[in-house]
C-alpha cells in the first residue's frame, strides 16, 4: 500500500515518501503496520539492545542449593564474592527470577520438581549449570539415580566446570551470560 491510497497526494510527494526508512523498514509499510511489523522493528532495531541491556544487568536467580556447589552459591551471593555488584540478587519464588542455577546433582526424584520450577519462571529466562554433576553427572555418572544429560531437559546457556568451582568462576560465568544476552546468542534467541 502507499500513502496515496488513503490521502490524495501528488505523485512526486508519494515517490519521495516511498524512499524514507525507519529502523531499516520503509515508512510507507510501517504506516499501515500490524503487530507483527512492530515486533519485527523491535527485534531488529536498537530498542532490543536497550531491553537486553536492562535484562543483563539485573539478573535475579533462584535460591536453590542442591549439592556441594550450593554452598558456594550461598557464598557467591554474600559478602566477599558479592554478586549484588552486578545487580544479581537471589529471590525465593520462581515467578520473580530470570536465571535458574543448577547447582548440583539432579536425581530421578527431584527432576519433575525441578522441571515444574523451570516452567513456572516467566520468559525471558536462562539456565546456568554449575559443577560437574550438573553438566554430565560428575563422579556419579554411573549411578542408577542421577540424571546425566541435564542439557536435554533444560536449555543450558553457560556451563561452569569444576568440582566445586571457585566463586570467582561463578562470577566469570555470570559475566559470560551477560555477554551472551548482549549479543543475542543465548539458546532461546531473545
Amino acid at each position, binding site marked *: 500500500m502507499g500513502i496515496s491510497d488513503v490521502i490524495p497526494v501528488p505523485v512526486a510527494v508519494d515517490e519521495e515518501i516511498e524512499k524514507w526508512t525507519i529502523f531499516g523498514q520503509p515508512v510507507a509499510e510501517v504506516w499501515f503496520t500490524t503487530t507483527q511489523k512492530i515486533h519485527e522493528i523491535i527485534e531488529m532495531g536498537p530498542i532490543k539492545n536497550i531491553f537486553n541491556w536492562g535484562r543483563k544487568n539485573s539478573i535475579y536467580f533462584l535460591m536453590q542449593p542442591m549439592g556441594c556447589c550450593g*554452598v558456594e552459591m550461598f557464598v557467591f551471593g554474600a559478602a*566477599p564474592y558479592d554478586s549484588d555488584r552486578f545487580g544479581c540478587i537471589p529471590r525465593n519464588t520462581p515467578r520473580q527470577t530470570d536465571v535458574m542455577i543448577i547447582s548440583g546433582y539432579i536425581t530421578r526424584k527431584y527432576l519433575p520438581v525441578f522441571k515444574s520450577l523451570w516452567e513456572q519462571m516467566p520468559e525471558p529466562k536462562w539456565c546456568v549449570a554449575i559443577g560437574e554433576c550438573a553438566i554430565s553427572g560428575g563422579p556419579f555418572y*554411573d549411578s542408577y539415580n542421577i540424571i546425566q544429560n541435564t542439557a536435554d531437559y533444560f536449555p543450558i546457556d553457560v556451563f561452569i566446570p569444576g568440582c566445586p568451582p571457585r566463586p570467582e568462576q561463578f562470577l566469570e560465568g555470570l559475566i559470560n551470560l551477560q555477554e551472551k544476552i548482549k549479543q543475542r546468542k543465548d539458546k532461546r534467541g531473545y
Partner: protein
Amino acid sequence: MTTASEVLSSLQSTFPGAVLESRVESDRRLWATIDSAKLLDVCKYLRDKLNFDHYSGAGGLDWIARKEMEVVEIMASHGSHQVVAMLKVKTPRDNPSVPSLAGLFWNANWYEREAWEMFGINFEGHPEPYPLLLGEDLVGVWPWRKDFKGYPDLTTGQRAVERINPQGYMQYYIPPTPAEIEAGTVPKERPKYPSLREREERDIKSDSEMIMHMGPQHAMVPGPFLLDVLVEGERVKKAYLDLGYIHKGIEKIMENRTWLQGITYTDRMCYVASLSNNECYCGAVEKILGLEVPERAQYIRVILEELSRIQSHLIGTGEFLTLIAGVGYAPWQYMIIDRESIISLIESVTGARLTHTFVRFGGVRNDLPEGFAEKCRPVMDYMRSRINEFIALFEQDPIYHLRMDNVGSITPETGKRMGASGPVLRATGVAYDMRKEDPILLYPDLDFKVITGTKGDCHDRIDVRLREILESIHIIEQCLDRIPAGPIKTEAKIPKKIPAGEAYYRVEDPRGEMGMYVVSDGGDKPYRVKVRGPFYATFQTLPPLLEGVYIADVVAIAGSMDGCPSEADR
C-alpha cells in the same frame, strides 16, 4: 566400667545358644552374631540391664556367595560405658526376614526402612514400611543387592518418559534398563510414600486446615528434602518428612571403585565438613590393615579437622541467622567473611575450598607449608575475639531471645531416645562427644572441654556451636605448640588388595556422631561401606518436634539442626 568381654560373657550366660559367633576386638568393640529368633530378647536385655540405650544404626549386607543376607545392628551407650556392640543377624537370601527393633528403639524406624528398600529384607513388625530414599519407579528392584542389573546405568536421563500421574501432576517415568528387563527382575507392585492428595484426604478434618509445602525447594538447609506441614491458621498440627531428593547411591558406587578412589566419594557426602568424612573412611581401612599413623600426620589431621569444624559451625550458624532475620542481616555476612580466612588456611594445605580428599591411608597427602603456624596464630586470635563478640551480641538482643528461647526444646531423655547426637544432643545437657567417648588420634592427650547447654532449645544449640568454636581454637593452639617433625605417611606399603576383614570407626563430625562400617573381602574394591551419618538420626527428630508450633518456628527449628540433607541421603 564395663568392657567388651564382660558384655560378651554376660550375654552368653544369660542367653545360652543365642550368640553364634563372637569376636572381641578391643576393650570397646564387640562383634557378635545373634540368632535371629532371640534378637528381640537380647536387645531388650542389652538396653535394660547393660545400659546400651543408644541405637546407633543398622545396615544390610548381601553375601551372595554364601546365599545369605546379614543385618548389622550397631548399639552403643550414652555415657554409661564406652562399648560398641556390633550385632549381626543372618537370614537366607531367598526370603530375607529379620525381627524389627522399631518397638524397642524409636529411631530404628528409618534404618530399617532403608535396609528394606535397598536389599529387600523384610522387617517383621515395622509400623510404616514405606520407601525412604528411592522414588516410585525404583522401589522393589532392591538396588544394593549384588545382582542388581540396573547398575552401572549410563543412560538414566535418556530413558525418561513424561506422563501425567493419577493426581494430575507431570511426572518422569524412567523405565527399567534393558538388562533388568532381560533378567526379569522388574517387580509389578510398587508401594510408595503417600502422595499429597492422599495425605490431604486422610488427615484434613476441617475446612480451616491445609497442607502447605515447605520444600523441596527452600533455603532452610543446603539441600532439598520434602517438608509438608498441616496447618490450621498459623499453627502446625502435623509435619511430614520425605528424603531421597539427592540420593546418589554413594554406597553402591564405592563398591565399584578402588579403595583410594573411594576417598573422593566420602567428601561429597557431607560437603560442609568433608575432612571428618575422609578421616572416618581412612581410619576404618587403617583398622583393617592394622596401620599406625605417624605422629606428625596425626597432628596435621587434628589441626585440619578442627579448622574444618570451625568453618562448618560458622556457615551453619550464619545460614540459620538469615532464616530468622532476612537476607539483609549483617552478622551473617561477617561470619562468611571470617570463614574465608579459615578456608584460605585450609586451602593453603589441601588445595581445595570445599571437597578436600586430603587424608590418605596411613597419613596425609601433603605436609603443612612453610610458615603455616605463623599465619595460623593471628587468625586464631582474631577468631577468638570475633566469636566472643558474636556471643555477646546475641546475648543482649531481646528479639533474639523472644524468637529462640523455649522454641523446639528437647529434654535429655527425649534426645537420647530419638538418637540425636552432636550439638543437638549436647544442648540438652548430655555430655556425649565422640572425641571423649571413642577417642582417636591425639584426642586423649589434648585438653578440652565438652560444651553442653541447659534447655535444649534453639538458643542453646546456637550457643553450643559458638562456644565449640572457642574450644576448637584452643585445641589448634595446643597442637601448633607441640607438633613434631617427622614423616607424614607411614613407611609400610599399602597393598592394592586390602586383606579380608571389617572395621567400624567413629569420629565427631561437626554435626554429631559419624561412623563408617567397612567390609573387605580381599579384593581391590570395598565389599560394603555403610555410612552412619549424624544428620540422618537428627532428621528423624524433626516431625515430632514440629507439632504445635507456629510456622515461623518451623523454619527456626529446622534451621537450628544445622543439617546437610546430602549426608542423610548419601
